[in-house]
């Protein structure tokens, strides 16, 4: 059987050259064959850490695919990683199987989440300490207060959630629960914290079971935070405070008291973002 060929040499090139650069055309090699070219959108909502859009390609094999992210200032080819000024990573990448093309977004930090480390923690048993202590120690009830600086939220900004992560805590010796109330501190710009400051009307009650070793727990402070940022004098960049108070805990039911304890305010703001992707599928097979 004779296999027809089309070969065009460049001027001056030798017939039979094995160098591809000597040819204008050589039918032994195939061009990339376009099959599909379209735009698809991905919407990432507040709190998301992963997002996938699925595009059926209608082929029965794994095709070659290129995906470009329309950043608004140009097309950027996937995969790539976004390194933010906060130091965490966000990935855009894609994959393909014999049915679909998948465009994926993955982030270590939930979308629209900001975290603030406490700059002050106060407790009543030792006002010079910088640790949390809440509950009942040796028959006496103790409460604590905490402050977070440079809160970026604007006045009345819509939020999805807010919590305080109380990290590196220990429990009191009893097996009974520690009972607590968590208030906001009702100030435009929270001063040095103690447990005598004016509290928000919003609060939550919660109980913490005794756990062995060092552990963390968290408090939902969404309503308290919303009350603070609704204040007429609230401004982005201000400090925000909270109290975590004993609420009738039984003797020796407490959390805190370790020198390594710390607190972080974690807020997810409302909002979403839509990204557009240009997807080019070739007929050529990957597998």
């Amino acid at each position, binding site marked *: 059987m004779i296999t027809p060929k*089309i070969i*065009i*040499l460049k*001027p001056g090139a030798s017939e039979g*050259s*094995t*160098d*591809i*650069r000597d*040819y*204008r*055309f*050589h039918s*032994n*090699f*195939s*061009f*990339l064959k376009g099959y599909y070219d379209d735009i698809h959108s991905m919407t990432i909502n507040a709190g998301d850490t992963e997002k996938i859009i699925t595009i059926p390609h209608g082929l029965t094999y*794994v095709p*070659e*695919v290129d995906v470009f992210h329309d950043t608004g200032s140009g097309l950027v080819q*996937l*995969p*790539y*990683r976004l390194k933010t000024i906060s130091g965490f*990573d966000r*990935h855009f*990448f*894609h*994959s*393909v*199987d*014999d049915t679909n093309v*998948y465009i994926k977004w*993955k982030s270590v930090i939930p979308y629209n989440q900001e975290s603030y480390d406490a700059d002050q923690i106060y407790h009543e048993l030792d006002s010079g300490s910088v640790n949390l202590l809440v509950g009942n120690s040796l028959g006496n009830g103790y409460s604590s207060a905490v402050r977070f600086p440079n809160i970026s939220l604007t006045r009345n900004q819509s939020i999805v959630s807010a919590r305080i992560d109380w990290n590196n805590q220990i429990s009191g010796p009893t097996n009974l629960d520690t009972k607590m109330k968590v208030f906001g501190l009702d100030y435009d710009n929270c001063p040095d914290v103690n447990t005598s400051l004016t509290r928000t009307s919003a609060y939550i009650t919660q109980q913490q079971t005794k756990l062995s070793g060092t552990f963390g727990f968290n408090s939902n402070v969404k309503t308290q935070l919303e009350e603070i940022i609704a204040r007429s004098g609230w401004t982005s960049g201000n400090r925000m405070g909270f109290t975590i108070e004993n609420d009738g805990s039984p003797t020796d039911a407490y959390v805190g008291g370790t020198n390594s304890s710390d607190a972080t305010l974690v807020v997810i703001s409302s909002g979403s973002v839509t990204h557009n992707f240009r997807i080019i599928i070739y007929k*050529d097979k*990957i*597998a």
Partner: protein
Amino acid sequence: MTLVPKLKIVKSDKSMDSTDPRDFVYDSDHPSIIIYMTELREVIVAGNSTTKDTVYFKDINMVNNQDLGFYPIVKISVELEPGSGEYFISPFTIDSTDGFSINIKQDSLSDTGVQTDKFFVTFKNNTATQKTVKYRYRVYANIG
């Protein structure tokens, strides 16, 4: 005067004299990208180990190894989870903490790269069990 051979295939509703490359199915005046070499390969990577796979470029007859004289574009798609049928396109920005067991190593220039006569890629298996990884490479070249 030297005659320069040309090959042009114009789209049905376009003019042969058009200066817009999009009007041509093929135009030898504009270099086109061809798939010079492609292959679906399998690489065995022992547990908690790396395997470097090297592919030498061939002449146009695909017989002898040949230095191409230029650095070609090489694209690689890898079935990161063996048997999944899902191929990811390199370079991978996902590291093992995201759950993938095998990645192209990126921490050393001598592990993964393209030269004029070959390319090489190093697979890293972060699990204790041996993996057989499929990957497709494509070596592109300009012609025209």
